[in-house]
């Protein structure tokens, strides 16, 4: 989702597992939480770092497309709501980096891996936000898709990740609703506003479907991650659930989903729909999406420009500590 196509270390059958690995798998199967200093297979640790790190990166890169409209929000109230929401995303990034840090990796290392391109973030944030209705569409569709994945992840096997997801889900509950509220205003507004709303839906529909990642029915990585309970549902399950939930919401708005093949399928009790263009998805992942360079460039610039600031504060803290120590020694 926010973590797409996370590579998991090879799946092992029970006969191939060491006694430690067997005991570990049994704990997960019993629904026990794994906590930071406990024994865990190296593959579990590495996969989690990749997944949580990617999720965290997505939160902070995800600030940018919406941040693009904070200074142009049309009313003071909308401005405050949008700013609070984008701020929450920074907070969610922070919670997730903290969860990753319990696995023995530092936040600065993760940042550097994002900046060098060694780690990825969700493809969705490489699409531009072109009109105000995009603030609605991002909340409604992008957060809607993210929530589909995050709600089950509250039950994930790794304690710190699970606790971060619980906090995030609690805070996110307003995000999707504020997005839909913007869409309602726009869809019921002037013809120009309605046009913006439809345009936003047209542009964000397929990228939102891509957020779940390509079909993983056959994927070994997914099977291992599901056995470890760091992935709870398959990509296709979640995508179907998302479409089934979203289509009636679009109808309520009087907007049409940009898919001629969209039909209710009585037999499966869900909609049939067109797959997104997966070649586009792979291009975006590779760095060729419409905004990849701007997004990563903005993060790198913020980090590089901020180095003197971080170091200045660090240096002062060290000096102040030395001064305190010297004062105590002198007093004695």
């Amino acid at each position, binding site marked *: 989702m926010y973590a797409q196509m996370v590579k998991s270390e090879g799946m092992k059958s029970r006969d191939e597992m060491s006694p430690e690995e067997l005991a570990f798998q049994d704990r997960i199967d019993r629904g026990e939480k794994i906590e930071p200093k406990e024994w865990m297979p190296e593959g579990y640790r590495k996969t989690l770092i990749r997944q949580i790190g990617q999720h965290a990166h997505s939160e902070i890169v995800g600030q940018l497309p919406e941040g693009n409209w904070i200074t*142009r*929000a049309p009313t*003071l109230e909308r401005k405050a709501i949008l*700013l609070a929401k984008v701020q929450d995303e920074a907070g969610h990034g922070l919670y997730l980096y903290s969860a990753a840090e319990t696995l023995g990796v530092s936040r600065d290392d993760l940042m550097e891996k994002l900046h060098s391109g060694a780690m990825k973030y969700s493809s969705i944030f490489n699409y531009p936000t072109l009109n105000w209705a995009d603030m609605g569409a991002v909340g409604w569709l992008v957060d809607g898709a993210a929530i589909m994945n995050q709600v089950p992840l509250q039950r994930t096997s790794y304690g710190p990740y699970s606790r971060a997801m619980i906090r995030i889900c609690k805070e996110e509950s307003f995000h999707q609703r504020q997005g839909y509220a913007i869409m309602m205003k726009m869809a019921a507004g002037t013809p120009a506003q309605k046009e913006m709303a439809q345009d936003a839906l047209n542009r964000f529909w397929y990228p939102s479907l891509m957020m779940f990642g390509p079909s993983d029915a056959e994927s070994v990585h997914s099977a291992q991650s599901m056995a470890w309970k760091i992935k709870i549902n398959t990509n296709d399950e979640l995508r179907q659930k998302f479409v089934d939930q979203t289509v009636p919401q679009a109808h309520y708005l009087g907007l049409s989903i940009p898919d001629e093949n969209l039909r209710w399928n009585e037999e499966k009790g869900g909609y049939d729909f067109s797959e997104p263009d997966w070649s586009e998805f792979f291009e975006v992942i590779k760095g060729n999406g419409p905004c990849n360079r701007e997004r990563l460039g903005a993060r790198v610039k913020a980090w590089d420009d901020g180095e003197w*600031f971080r170091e200045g504060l660090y240096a002062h803290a060290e000096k102040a500590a030395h001064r305190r120590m010297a004062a105590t020694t002198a007093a004695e």
Partner: protein
Amino acid sequence: MNKTTEQDVSNPVEDAFVADAALAPAFFAWLCRMGDNALILGHRVSEWCGHAPALEEDIAMANTALDLIGHTQMWLGLAGEVEDKGRDADALAYLRDALQFRNLLLCELPNGDMGLTLMRQFLFDARHHLMLEWLTRSASPRVAEIAAKAVKEASYHLERSSDLVVRLGDGTEESHRRMQAAVEQLWPYVDEMFVTDAVDDAMAAAEIAPRPCDLRKEWDETVRSVFAEATLDVPGAVGFAQTGGNLGRHTEHLGYILAEMQFLQRAYPGASW
């Protein structure tokens, strides 16, 4: 948060000043000064969202911006009532042009680096906090009520910005150099914060607000003690102070801020968002 504001507006405390027609022009202008400072500085601070040097700082800056947007809603909301021409806070924020804006030039200056942003914030906060503290005892109950809410936030802003000025001034050679450069760059805009004109005299005569020039001494003391701790030099008197915001004479920057901020309201008049 907005819910509370709405309730307060629908059920305001008694305040004879609000309907005082003779006082209205000065009172309105003064309220616009308060509201526009918060609006324009809040706009600038919000530009950092997603671009700050550390996640914790990103979140802290957004909090400051959110507080200032909240202040804007209260001050401009009351300005609209005093003016009594059917304009609410949004109409005042989004449908006035630069000539009608009354904010300090300091607030509209571009962010520069974090050093400049934080120095601007500190110089502003030191005055803002003094102003709001005074206003909690304003003869106007509505003004006092807004100030009582805003002063808690402004006092945290001052605590934060003065702390960061001290830390960065004392930090590394580079951080010290940048902070001192920020002081030099911003110092010509300091005097404007204490310019006192007929509007201020009218507010002071009604005991609604202090004369800004009367806040200067205490402001100087705060700045001096913070700069001393930060090992920063206080610049000497400015030969030629940059002023004019109070009267609607701004820097070139404000036009661009408004072009961006007001774009949707201007391009789609009358639409509801």
